[in-house]
């Protein structure tokens, strides 16, 4: 039930913009709760790596006196990975195209994170 609701939120998120290519909801321990990922991506790796990056982001923001973490953004030559908290127990990880309009992507992710937090 809850998994279906999370999957539905991710489906809406991926459908909200053609720039978003994949997304996942992950526990802070790095385990996948729901995902819409391409077949070539390993769920376990996406989950664990995203949660680890967000954890490191938390520490970095704190250590470098940047306040509480809002998101972690990774830019590669082929696109972006954006990770953010969805409440205290979950992480949202999104992959977007290199041509993505980041402002819109951030807004969609924020809305999705709020919805996920309510479900969890």
């Amino acid at each position, binding site marked *: 039930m809850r998994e279906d609701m999370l999957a539905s939120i991710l489906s809406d998120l991926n459908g909200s913009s053609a720039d978003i290519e994949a997304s996942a909801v992950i526990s*802070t*321990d*790095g*385990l996948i709760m729901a995902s819409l990922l391409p077949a070539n991506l*390993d769920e*376990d*790796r996406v*989950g*664990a*790596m995203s*949660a*680890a990056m967000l*954890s*490191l982001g*938390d*520490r970095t923001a704190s250590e470098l006196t940047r306040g509480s973490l809002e998101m972690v953004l990774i830019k590669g030559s082929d696109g972006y990975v954006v990770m953010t908290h969805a409440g205290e127990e979950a992480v949202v990880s999104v992959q977007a195209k290199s041509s993505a309009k980041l402002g819109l992507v951030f807004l969609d992710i924020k809305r999705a994170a709020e919805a996920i937090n309510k479900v969890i």
Partner: protein
Amino acid sequence: MVDIDYEQLMRYAKQFSGVTEQMEETLQGLYERVKPNMADVTEDFYAVLLDIPKAEPFLKDRVDSLKETHIKWLETVFSGPFDVDYVRAMYRVGDVHVKAKLPVEFMAGAMALVSTRLIAMLGTIIIDDQKRFVEAVSAVNAILGFTLMVMQQSYESSRLAEELEKFLKITGMSRTLFDNLASAYKE
């Protein structure tokens, strides 16, 4: 804490160091004769250690209790048994060395010192039987090598565990998250 298969470690270390039942019997046969010399061997050993500037700070405030423990261990070298309990005890010694932040070379260095002194001591006990002397020296070398292997294994595991703890503290990652990450990349 890492789960250790002491039985497996014992077999591996014995195979590598060449410890045989005959060697254990050789050492046990010498026990009564070497026992009175253990205090002198220990005194000599610590005299050398206390002369090493890098080692001295680790010893100065507790040298008497360390000597006591050392004598007991030396007696074990000539009494055995070199079983899983011995391996477990030596593994713990390696762990204690890490917690005391002793440099890794201390264990190998100390074993070399012990070996030299035990061989010299055996030379004073087995005077007219070269074959027996060689057997005793071989057995001592094998047991000290066996012990060193176990301690170094422990040292390595404990050092890695300490570094992992530090890494987790710095990154803010939970142990579970780290395990899940490691598991996701297991080959």
